[in-house]
């Protein structure tokens, strides 16, 4: 799949960049409103599961980009999304590098378990929902499919080959799992990603 590495932009976005560089606080708010959700989602994707540092890292990324915008360092408005994405990747990797050198694994686990978005679940509500639906028993091969893909990070082709299934089956299992999980999150009151 070929890609153009420059995203389209528009006059409005160009204005926001210029206005931030000129010290316009309203423009900063517009920028934050536009990108904060995406930054949070992508930071979570680049972090380890349930890492309680996601929110802090997302704030760091927002602040870092804002500082560069204020300084007028980001001149190419079309490159702004790519800049933000690269900042996210950089922030996540820097975070884990620093933990490797300064903190024992135990303390990281403690951080992971201590907070994070999963705390926002209504546990009672979720348990109730789960209980009502637990009659649907899992099948070993499909559990294995998800395990290989998500935990072992096997390629789709590898997963299909190992389990002797076709890609249509793979897509059905994974797609359904994603969709049902999204519905589960919504039902449990998790609207974070949509706000």
């Amino acid at each position: 799949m070929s890609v153009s590495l420059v995203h389209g932009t528009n006059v409005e976005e160009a204005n926001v960049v210029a206005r931030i560089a000129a010290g316009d606080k309203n423009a900063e708010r517009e920028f934050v409103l536009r990108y904060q959700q995406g930054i949070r989602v992508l930071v979570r994707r680049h972090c380890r599961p349930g890492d309680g540092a996601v929110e802090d890292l997302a704030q760091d990324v927002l602040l870092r980009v804002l500082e560069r915008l204020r300084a007028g360092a980001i001149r190419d408005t079309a490159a702004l999304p790519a800049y933000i994405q690269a900042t996210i990747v950089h922030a996540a990797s820097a975070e884990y590098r620093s933990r490797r050198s300064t903190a024992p694994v135990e303390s990281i686990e403690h951080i992971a378990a201590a907070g994070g978005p999963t705390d926002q679940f209504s546990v009672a509500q979720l348990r109730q929902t789960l209980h009502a639906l637990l009659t649907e028993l899992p099948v070993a091969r499909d559990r294995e499919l998800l395990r290989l893909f998500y935990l072992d990070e096997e390629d789709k082709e590898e997963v299909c080959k190992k389990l002797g299934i076709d890609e249509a089956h793979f897509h059905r299992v994974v797609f359904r799992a994603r969709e049902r999980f999204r519905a589960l999150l919504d039902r449990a009151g998790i609207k974070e990603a949509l706000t």
Partner: protein
Amino acid sequence: MPHAPFQQQGELARAEAAPMTLQPATERMALWLERAWMSRYLDRQLTGEESAWFEAYVLDKPELLAEIDADTRLRDTLMGRESQTFPNEATNSSSSLGEVSTTPSANRGFPSKHTSFRGWGPSWVPLAASLIVGVGVGALAMHGKLAQESPPTHESFASKIPGIIANPTRLVFDAQRGAEDIVQVEHKDSSSAYVLIEIGVPLGVEEVRLHIQGEDDRKLLRSNEGFVSFLLPRDVLQSKIAPEISYSLNGRPVTQPLHLILREKSP
């Protein structure tokens, strides 16, 4: 493709150093193309460069972000689940899984995530993972049940079915573009008793069903190439009532008639 957070350190410098070349405003990608990108992204089939591009693309698109976030949380929940056994695992895993290796691969993306984070999270998280898998499998069971629906019983053709049907008339529709008319015809003058209908459908469609007056609805399954297909007795081409397909796309119901009219091509 593993997560690739460590590959792109140079992007920061490159982005800052980019020349002042404002690009003209561009339209958002077509839905089908966006779906293709999303599918490949979630299936980890994009290169590191492509993934970075796509992540930048989705940054201000809430509906796409929601999909990515659901996938991330699914991954996270399954990882939380890894430290415990699935329901019934103890009794059926060895026989069901056979020789499949379940050892986490090392040195990919965040290699330590498979080991360092086992056991994190509240106790209901494993339960959630079980549910997710269960529901997915439930859907599969549904597929299986529906796939076993009885074959067509069109009486006027039941006695004419040969063992092999070579070169049947093939009609292609494109539901992705909302085309209700045939977009391609092959073997128009075939003597086959059946007509093969193929319909290109958007990625992510669910519950594709075929409705023909006087017949039970049939569930259609999307192929890897993005088509649903079925055979119809040839006399349906003479029918004045168009068959319909219906499906759900992003929660939105769509119904589309199929005009089975073999028009002569313009000279």
